[in-house]
């Protein structure tokens, strides 16, 4: 089932939490929402799950519209809300049984589904404990188990790995990737590495608007148009090297990175590359070029550039 969001706007009082955004997620795609706190990620997710009614705009999940067939959408969505709300007094098994019943899982299938979820989410040792007795990581697993119990076509996960330790994070990411091959998944996070590791596509949201949309590579290219090189030149006068580098036609800026070993940061003009020119320069002057490597724009930088303006 695909998700189509068209001109979604959500206004709280005077604030536009989500401002006229449109996007589409295909089946078999994992979309990552990135954005600072309060950017409108959760609001968008809550609208897709039919919890919030948009101020304007429409959302379709498969062939169902949130206004006309909210129940069909709810049947097909697995949702893990922000902060993972659970009933602390309920034992894990009872809670999963309750959810399975509400989600309309066939009663004959209850036991099998619950056992599978307990297994998939690694809850074997805690299944008879009350939720209140679980650690944060295990609660998060219960949250995932309840979202997956009815084998939903669409999975909406609001910050799924908060509170998990590094091993669990890797497990959960693998699980999400596995599910994402056949289902439609939207997840939000502010851990950039996580989104990069799990998602096919990244969408950066800021102040209720989409500011970037594409694969991690595409986003890097989009933001880092200029070539940046780290150059180490040995056996040479640093100031002279600096001057000579500045004279190169394609170079926009040269900076010292490490004066001890003679490392410079060379930023080229937009669209130009200085690699060949630097090599030729070293050959001409008999300098020893020991390093010449391009610096990739990190996703963090892309994120900061897009959301700090």
């Amino acid at each position, binding site marked *: 089932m695909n998700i189509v969001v068209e001109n979604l706007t959500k206004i709280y009082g005077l604030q536009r939490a989500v401002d006229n955004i449109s996007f589409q997620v295909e089946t078999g795609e994992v979309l990552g929402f990135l954005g600072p706190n309060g950017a409108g990620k959760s609001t968008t997710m*809550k609208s897709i*799950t*039919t*919890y*919030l*009614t948009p101020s304007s705009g429409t959302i379709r999940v498969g062939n169902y519209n949130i206004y006309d067939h909210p*129940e*069909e959408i*709810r*049947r097909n*969505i697995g*949702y893990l*809300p922000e*902060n993972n*709300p*659970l*009933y*602390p*007094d*309920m034992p894990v098994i*009872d809670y999963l049984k*309750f*959810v399975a*019943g*509400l*989600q*309309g899982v066939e009663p004959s299938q209850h036991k099998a589904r619950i056992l599978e979820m307990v297994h998939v989410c690694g809850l074997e040792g805690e299944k008879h404990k009350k939720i209140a007795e679980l650690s944060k990581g295990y609660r998060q697993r219960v949250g995932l188990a*309840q979202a997956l119990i009815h084998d939903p076509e669409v999975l909406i996960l609001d910050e799924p790995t908060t509170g998990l330790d590094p091993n669990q994070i890797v497990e959960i990411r693998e699980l999400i990737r596995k599910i994402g091959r056949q289902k439609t998944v939207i997840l939000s996070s502010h851990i950039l590495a996580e989104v990069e590791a799990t998602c096919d596509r990244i969408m950066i949201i800021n102040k209720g608007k989409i500011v970037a949309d594409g694969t991690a590579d595409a986003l890097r290219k989009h933001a880092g148009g200029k070539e940046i090189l780290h150059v180490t030149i040995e056996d040479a006068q640093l100031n002279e090297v600096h001057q000579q580098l500045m004279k190169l036609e394609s170079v926009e800026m040269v900076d010292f990175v490490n004066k001890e070993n003679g490392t410079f940061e060379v930023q080229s003009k937009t669209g130009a590359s200085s690699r060949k020119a630097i090599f030729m320069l070293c050959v001409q002057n008999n300098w020893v070029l020991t390093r010449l490597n391009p610096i990739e724009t990190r996703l963090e930088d892309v994120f900061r550039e897009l959301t700090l303006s």
Partner: protein
Amino acid sequence: MNKIWIIAKKEWQSFFDSLTAYIMLVVFLGFSGFFTWLFGSDIFFVKQASLSVFFGVSYWTLFFFIPALTMRQFAEENKTGTIELLLTRPVTDWQVIAGKFLATFLLIGFALLLTLPYYFTVASLGNIDNGATISGYFGLLLISSAYISIGLFASSLTNNQIVGFLLAMAIGILFHFIFSLLAMSTGGLVAETFNYLSISARFDAISRGVIDTNDLIYFVSLIFLSLVSTEAILQKNRN
């Protein structure tokens, strides 16, 4: 119906898990038993084989206990955010409300069932009016339903249980005292309206075993109005 039952079962379970149910049952039976059999103008004082004293006592005990049962039903879900998960399941708001209503109603029904020995005791003492007893119990269930609906409405307004409890009590007091007081201090049509709205006048008849259509319509409308308002609040929270 199935979904309503699933929600009701979960609510019922949480009454017992949180010990609320045990406390409620013990205190209700203790209170109504004490005032019915042992203290003040008790059942022996009226010199009739009638449970009307018990009905009068229950009327007041339930007035305090039902808000204590309903106070957390929406307030706690609002506070922890579980309401978001509940309302994004394939259930309607009405099924959620009905499930919570049903669980509380069944618990009250269970509490009243445990007072049946009172009936058998009184019946063995003299000639009891069975019709009056049945309609007395029916009246208690009717009033309980009204309290439950008001309690659910109050609980849906807040994310604090105590506020939910106090609000339900405040609305209850309005129907118990304020309206009849206003009826006394005004006159004409206004007084009649307030008198109509007051619960207390109706209960006197009910505890004697008399329920007329007028009362039935009154309670059903009160229940309906409270539940519709609860649904409106759930809807409003989505905006």
